């Protein structure tokens, strides 16, 4: 049984209330940080932990904090990115729903480290129930003296607010999020300047994912060195994986980084295998924007080594035979799933969510959606696959923010690994939507599990 740093108490009745959370050792990190450490020492612990941003980019959190400019007389801000909208990812919603005080405790410690006296949790607007949960938890924490003026008599002041978004995936990009928080359209800003220099209201700002901020709590409680002992290589600590798709046991799991993907997929402690006794066809390992991999390439690297749930192992082979950890949005596809339909679905998502600021993304995502739609519905041409690859290349790297890349990678990788399935849609237009397209990619290295339907 793997250790649980974030989800240890998730099933304790009433853990969403201050008193129960406190009785389980909650807010000890706030006491330790504010009473015994300096802000720089907190940053140092996070650096030592090796924590990497859990929102998708995987940038070292401590390093990001140390970049924060500290001009005298200028306010600094911490903004929590809770705009969880990446298809496949639902860990932050889970964490905020069941253990909101963990996020609030992390916000207090991180705000103290950064010298922020006002912090915001930007939550996607659709998560109104979670917004209400967080607001109640903030009120509780404030009533107990953990927020507001002179926290625990240490002289440190912090106000924490929840900001609802308006329903736009692009606001998960940190500069678009800041624009949105300023009451504008969520159009990403050109970087530099980075938010660490000029962020919210032009002031130095750090934007961190919910899980990254929550992870600060065990790091301060146990020390950065202890946290760094978990995991493998530069992938330290635990990671929340939101597992969905055709799994026996979909859900949010906390794993030690470095867990073999085979164990994660097939053991009863985690996903329990593929639902209905079917075989695994493909996996999206880190949210819809990362390259899709057929089962055989996902289970083992090109060097025939077992693939691990770590930043490095998942990326091994680059975009030719590897993928990315991303946000930990894990989607498993069984043998009945149509990759063309799935790729079209994702292309529609990115077209819908493009903010429209950059022409390659605004126009290119629409082209990809249209071409994939005609392929799925039996009107495609053999030249469409090359056209899609060409369009994806023209989007990738040519936009202000990474949404263009996120739109291009699923399409390019699906064609790379499942080209014969796309061709089958062209050669079998009338059967294209019936999804009987052979078993070319079901080279599952594991035996078909005889399991009951979930």
């Amino acid at each position: 049984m793997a250790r649980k740093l974030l989800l240890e108490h998730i099933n304790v009745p009433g853990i969403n209330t201050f008193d129960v959370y406190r009785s389980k050792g909650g807010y000890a990190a706030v006491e330790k940080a504010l009473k015994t450490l300096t802000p720089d020492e907190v940053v140092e612990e996070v650096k030592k932990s090796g924590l990497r941003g859990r929102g998708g980019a995987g940038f070292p959190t401590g390093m990001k904090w140390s970049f924060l400019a500290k001009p005298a007389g200028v306010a600094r801000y911490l903004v929590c990115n809770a705009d969880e909208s990446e298809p496949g990812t639902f860990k932050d919603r889970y964490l905020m729903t069941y253990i909101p005080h963990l996020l609030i405790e992390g916000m207090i410690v991180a705000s103290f480290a950064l010298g922020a006296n006002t912090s915001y949790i930007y939550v996607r607007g659709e998560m109104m129930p979670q917004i209400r949960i967080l607001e109640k938890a903030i009120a509780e924490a404030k009533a107990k003296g953990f927020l507001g003026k002179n926290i625990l008599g240490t002289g440190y002041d912090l106000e924490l607010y929840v900001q609802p978004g308006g329903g736009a995936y692009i606001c998960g990009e940190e500069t678009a999020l800041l624009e949105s928080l300023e009451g504008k359209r969520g159009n990403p800003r050109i970087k530099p300047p980075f938010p660490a220099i000029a962020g919210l209201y032009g002031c130095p700002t750090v934007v961190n994912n919910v899980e990254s901020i929550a992870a600060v709590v065990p790091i301060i409680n146990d020390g950065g060195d202890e946290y760094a002992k978990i995991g493998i290589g530069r992938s330290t600590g635990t990671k929340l994986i939101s597992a969905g798709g055709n799994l026996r046991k979909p859900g949010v799991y906390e794993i030690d980084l470095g867990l073999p993907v085979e164990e994660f997929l097939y053991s009863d402690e985690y996903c329990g295998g593929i639902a209905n006794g079917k075989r695994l066809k493909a996996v999206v390992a880190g949210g819809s924007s990362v390259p899709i991999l057929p089962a055989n390439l996902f289970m083992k690297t090109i060097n025939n080594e077992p693939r691990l749930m770590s930043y490095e192992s998942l990326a091994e082979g680059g975009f030719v035979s590897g993928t990315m950890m991303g946000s930990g949005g894990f989607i498993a596809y069984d043998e009945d799933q149509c990759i063309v339909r799935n790729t079209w679905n994702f292309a529609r998502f990115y077209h819908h969510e493009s903010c429209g600021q950059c022409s390659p993304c605004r126009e290119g995502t629409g082209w990809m959606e249209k071409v994939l739609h005609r392929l799925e519905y039996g009107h495609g041409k053999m030249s469409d696959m090359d056209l899609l690859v060409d369009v994806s290349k023209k989007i990738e790297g040519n936009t202000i923010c990474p949404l263009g890349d996120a739109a291009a990678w699923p399409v390019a990788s699906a064609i790379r690994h499942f080209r014969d399935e796309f061709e089958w849609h062209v050669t079998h237009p009338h059967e294209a939507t019936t999804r009987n397209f052979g078993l070319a990619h079901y080279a599952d290295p594991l035996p078909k599990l005889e399991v009951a339907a979930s």
Partner: protein
Amino acid sequence: MLSVQDTNTPVTFSPELLDKFADVVSRYPYGKQKSALLPILHLVQAEYGWVSVPAMDSVANFLSIQPIEVYEVASFYTMYFLKPQGKYMLEVCRTGPCEIVGATPIMEHIEKTLGVKEGDVTPDGLFSWRGVECLAACGFGPVLQIGPEYTFYENLTPESVDQLIGDLRAKS
């Protein structure tokens, strides 16, 4: 051109609603009251069911910003309705993970049951429905949510959808 259904009905916010607006504005530094725009539009929509042009003009007036600044925000974000909707808007997640576990049949079932196309309102004014992009509940699909409280329903089946619609009808 802004695609909204216009109305000449003037909008006067109640003192209670204005108090809520003021509370939101107090969260930001002096002079940064525009940050309150998204939360205030949510409050307006919760009160009136949608955001009309006169309502947006009144919000602009309250925040001391130009009306165009409100229009461009309201038309950018998908959560703001620029025309009247049914009392209950059923929003079904239609993105990848929900799609592979049956979002499309659920949307077809809702269309058939309510008898109106996506985005239209039932004659009794009670229901609208639409497909929306990822709702961040991918392990529990298909899912839908219903505003203005955004109550959430997971692992939908045609039967559970019938039950849900029946309960809402009975409530009204």
